[in-house]
């Protein structure tokens, strides 16, 4: 079980969540001005990294919040969690960044 720290509910098993996908994909802010290539990139293209990956999960069987999760795709280790707009790689302040290692929750 991957264990995700929901900013609102705390540490929960991933079976309470629904996986949404890559969190780094920004929907074009001005849809009419975005090029076809930009739309294609947003809808279809994925970095798909082997290692830390910022992704969105919905706590669908909990508070239904969308949670941004920084997770290592090689080990499934959750490195940080925050709100969807947080940049977890930059260490931006989310209300509830997890400290997985300390509590022994590292996967």
């Amino acid at each position, binding site marked *: *079980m*991957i264990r995700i720290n929901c900013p609102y509910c705390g540490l929960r*098993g*991933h*079976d309470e969540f*629904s*996986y949404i*996908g*890559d969190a780094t994909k920004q929907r074009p802010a001005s849809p009419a001005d975005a090029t*076809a*290539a930009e739309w*294609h*990139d947003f*809808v*279809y*293209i*994925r*970095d*798909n*990294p*082997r290692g830390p*990956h910022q*992704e969105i*999960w919905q706590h669908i069987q909990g508070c239904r919040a969308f949670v941004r999760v920084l*997770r290592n*795709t*090689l*080990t*499934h280790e959750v490195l940080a969690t925050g709100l969807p707009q947080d940049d977890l790689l930059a260490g931006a302040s989310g209300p509830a960044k997890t400290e997985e290692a300390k509590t022994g929750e590292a996967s």
Partner: protein
Amino acid sequence: MAEYSAFNLLRNAISGHKDWRRAWRDPEPKKQYDVIIVGAGGHGLASAFYLAKNHGIRNIAVLEKGYLGGGNTGRNTTIVRSNYMLEENAHFYEKSLQLWEQLSQELNFNVMFSQRGVTNLAHSDNQMDAFARRGNTMRMNGIDAELLDRAQVRREMPYLDFSDNARFPIYGGLKQPRGGTARHDAVAWGLARGADRLGVDIIQNCEVIGFKQKGNRITAVETSRGEIGCERIGFAVAGHTGHLAAKLGMKLPIESHVLQAFVSEPLKTLIDTVVTYGAGHFYVSQSDKGGLVFGGDIDMYNSYAQRGNTPMIEHVVSAGLAMIPSLSRLRILRHWGGIMDMSMDGSPIIGKSPIDNLYLNCGWCYGGFKATPGSGWVFAHTIANDQPHAINAGLTLDRFERGRMVDERGAGPYPNRH
């Protein structure tokens, strides 16, 4: 006389099996190859085999990071079928099925292709309607299909849950009699031996580290066993295509996900066909050794770890027992994971890439194993002719930009829903 035959087996039995040759050589990589295929799984080996056999190209290397057949070729649930509805898939998978039908003879290696039939169960009128459409389309394409009603399903598979306790009663099913299973490892070994005998160098324990490029071409591959030059290069590393493409600064419409598979303890024959549940994701067949081999959904999150977690295991097993309650006291012997290239429309990408001499064979989602010979056949054609064959022309990388998705499930650009 064929190297592998009952006669030679008897002859060797008398001489203590001392005379068998290596199934494939263990060559040192040469400096330069006409074609390099990255990935010695079923697809890569089949590509090399058909490049050599059909297109006369013999100076080929297949580079493999670990041991050949060690990726998804040896991790899948071994189902072979061509019961696809959409034009772009149907002809391709049917070609593959036709190649399966002759593969053991072609390779002189018994891949144990067992055409025991594949039946998809339906649990509602809507599902029966969708299967009718798919089956009719298959028949119009010249592919075998039969629509079974509940009574027919019951006759063929009495062990399914026909009781009042079934949450989703069985309405019927769509059967492809020519579908079935094959021995997955044997496919890799047979293709490796076949390619090797045609002069292909299969180089194991050779990890691709980077590429040398000149203009819009790849001139050489940097590997853990040194630099190897190439004229053309094909990727057949499904599961890891994104990772490899990233070394070229290329991003793809693919996510890597882990799919788990399971095998039970061996049993006397109980399930003599391949059957899939329609009210949940579960498919099962029984191996010749006797183990029930089954699988379900991917774990849903991006992953490069070849292991999954308990929620999906429990979900898959629940679906299995909902379909066949009498399996309850049987035991799981092993479960493992493989990494799938999940494409954005659930269909593979097999064709040219934005780099002139690089060809992509990826995005196989759940379905790569059955495609093995067909994939190799069309990929070889594509590499040899620098253009796709008619039957993989719809499976190009640019179909997403062009709005020509091949979405068999109608699930949309969400790779984990296919």
